[in-house]
């Protein structure tokens, strides 16, 4: 090597690097070459600096987006909590006033029942919100143990939260994997509750469980109102509810499926749905049977 040219790459008084040019033959560098290398180093500084600025802008944007989502979440949650609270506050004050002005009037049973019902609704909403928040911190799924999904599904089917509807469980043999039984049970119960909620009284709700190639398959099928095609891509997103859902009849915050998806994914599985509006829906859960962790 005969000669070497070095120009600093610096921006805003900060040394970012150096641009070097070598030559091993005659003629060696001229004054023009020095200017050229300086110019190139300055150009490099501009490019490097603008890239840093773009990265910074992206970071700020991602941060703002996260803050906005959190704010949306809190404001949607507050709205949904205020609805049962409105009945609770007004009804309780009304009963209080009645007790003061007409102490001998008979108990207002419908009013009292309304307080009990809305209190329960509020408490279910709070639990749902807590689950959604734990889910985001990755803290929703607890200890895993060997679980027979068929047995778990039969337990869930026997629970009395389905308006007296019969739930059919179809399976040939036990399907055992390592899961958090409480959380997988919660997924099944939520899917069955949805199936019951959105289908006619006499229609069948069916859980089919099978396994293939080391994976467990759970299908929950109803013959209900189905999901409009336009809603399918967002159905597992939080606060999304089907546009054909009459939310007067069907209370809910739109967090159930979001929580189900999170629980299944934290088990290394996946969820999907097949549905036609008016013809019913099948929610499909796939879980690995061997633990990978």
């Amino acid at each position: 090597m005969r000669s070497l040219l070095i120009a600093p790459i610096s921006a805003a008084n900060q040394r970012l690097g150096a641009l070097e040019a070598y030559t091993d033959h005659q003629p060696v560098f001229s004054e023009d070459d020095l200017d050229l290398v300086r110019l190139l180093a300055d150009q490099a500084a501009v490019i490097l600096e603008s890239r840093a600025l773009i990265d910074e802008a992206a970071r700020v944007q991602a941060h703002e987006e996260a803050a906005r989502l959190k704010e949306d979440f809190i404001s949607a949650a507050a709205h949904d909590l205020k609805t049962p609270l409105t009945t609770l506050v007004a009804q309780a004050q009304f009963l209080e006033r009645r007790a003061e002005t007409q102490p001998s009037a008979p108990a207002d049973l419908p009013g009292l029942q309304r307080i009990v019902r809305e209190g329960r609704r509020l408490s279910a909403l709070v639990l749902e919100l807590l689950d959604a928040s734990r889910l985001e911190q990755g803290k929703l799924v607890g200890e895993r143990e060997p679980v027979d999904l068929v047995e778990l599904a039969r337990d869930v089917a026997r629970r009395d939260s389905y308006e007296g509807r019969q739930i059919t469980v179809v399976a040939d043999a036990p399907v055992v994997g390592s899961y958090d039984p409480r959380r997988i049970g919660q997924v099944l119960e939520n899917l069955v509750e949805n199936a019951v909620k959105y289908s006619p009284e006499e229609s069948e709700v069916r859980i089919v469980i099978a396994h293939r190639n080391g994976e467990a398959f759970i299908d929950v099928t109803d013959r209900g109102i189905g999901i409009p095609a336009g809603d399918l891509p967002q159905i597992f997103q939080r606060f999304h509810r089907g546009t054909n859902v009459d939310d007067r009849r069907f209370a809910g915050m739109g967090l159930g499926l979001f929580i189900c998806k999170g629980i299944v994914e934290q088990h290394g599985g996946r969820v999907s749905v097949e549905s036609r509006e008016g013809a019913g829906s099948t929610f499909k859960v796939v879980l690995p049977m061997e633990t990978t962790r």
Partner: protein
Amino acid sequence: MVDDDPSIVAVVSDILIAEGHEVVSAENGAEALMKANGEALVLLDMRMPVLDGWGFAREFRASGKRSPIVVMTAAENARRWAEEIGAEGYLAKPFEIDALIAAVERYATGRH
């Protein structure tokens, strides 16, 4: 009153009936438009299926009806929404029973 939450409809009706008012209820804007018949006041929820509060207010005014409107909403921007639809007043949910009674006394026409 127009609200899609049956419990709120029931308790507000009980309260206003006890105050000596008559109450006609509807669960969405479309049903309310059909039932509207010169009421002294409309208590209006904003987020409802089928036809929301904005849609109701637009069609209600377009049809020449003049009943005062009081917006009832659990959203944070109750006041702004009330201004948007040209409502006379608003009640932010959850409201005190006295605030409900006072709003009805204040805005309802044909009283005093």
